[in-house]
């Protein structure tokens, strides 16, 4: 699974952090750090984190499109 967080949009609401703590973490008080290539076992957590973001800054590719086969 691949994700990217648009750090320009991210305002540090941190709604995503408790929903996917292994993937999205706060660095200091408001800077978000994330794992761009989380394990597929985190799928549900990532989907919830994406939905929780008030500014929709998290972009996730939960399933690869047909023409992308390599990890």
């Amino acid at each position, binding site marked *: 699974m*691949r*994700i*990217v967080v*648009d*750090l*320009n*949009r991210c305002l540090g609401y941190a709604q995503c952090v408790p929903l996917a703590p292994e993937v999205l973490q706060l*660095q200091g008080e408001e800077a978000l*750090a*994330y*794992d*761009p*290539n989380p394990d597929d076992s985190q799928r549900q957590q990532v989907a919830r984190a994406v939905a929780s973001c008030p500014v*929709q800054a998290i*972009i*996730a*590719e939960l399933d*690869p*499109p*047909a*023409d*992308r086969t*390599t990890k």
Partner: protein
Amino acid sequence: MITHPLVADLVRTFKAQGRIVIVGASLAGLRAAEALRDEGFTGSLTIIGDEVHQPYDRPPLSKQVLKGWVPAGNTKLPRMRAIDADWRLGVAATGLDRDNREVLLANGDKVPYDRLLIATGVRSRAWFNPEEAKLKGLFTLRTCDDAAELHAALKARPKRVLIVGAGFIGSEMASVCRDLGLDVTVAERSSASLVGPLGGVIGDIAAKMQRDAGVDLRTGVAVEALKGDAGGHVRQAQLSDGTLLDVDVVVASLGSVRNIEWLEGAELAAGFWGVACDAGCRAFDINGVVTDNIFVAGDIARGPHVLYEYQFMAIEHVDAAGTGRPDRGAQHGQPRDRTSCAPAAAAVLVRPVRREHQGCRRVLLP
């Protein structure tokens, strides 16, 4: 606006049979390709990139990757849709033949195009002294290979890291070094950190934060020379205030240089500041005339900026390349984000090109 049936027919034909070549396989190139397919382009799409890697996200390289949480190869960009492109990765474009409409590649191949998108971006500025640049232990940070090498060097616990330049990347790297418990010196020519992008007031606050975090920040100094040991590994740095610093790792964080060399001789308005284009991302030629079939996106695009009295500027920021949410504006009922160059370029690519001049409208066909 009513489209003439003849024009509509040509657009339909181009969308089905046209050949679009994108030079640059990073964020702008990828998002442009996705936008093209979203707009209904089903013709041939070729993406050329000098790095062997699939498009990846660069911002994590100076943060999570350097710190060691995320491996350097794990920042590949999410794909928004299938793009069915012909990928030419690991081979740089070396020339542009506009007469024959071909991109020349480093391996001698020629890739023909009907429309071209230039998205070759920037590279990090190399150390100014070519002899010293060969020293082991001297790094720059732009690509994921750079990040992998620098991470390995930091993992070896150097006694002191010297970062030259306190811009965003330099400051982030200093932060990572402190997180890793490494001694780090930052040499900055201006009066504080981040003065260039954020100004003196915020710069002073940033400098205080860095010093409080244990960064040895030295302002108002330049690094004049690097000295290596017998094995060719950097060991000392000579500062302009006369200080000689013992260092094991030096990172040159000196800003970026635009990748325009391959356009030499193509007679486009390309130079130090980027490739000039209009608000619709169409490139200008050297006479200042807008081209019909060449477009520019991402870091290298230098177009009129609405917030700065339409000065021509290149915005080296991920936002200018379109971070990748095609529905971003649409869901709020707004037109597409204007700073997202790549989707804009892609939209133009599949529409008839129009020139409006002194009240007389001329339609240039694809």
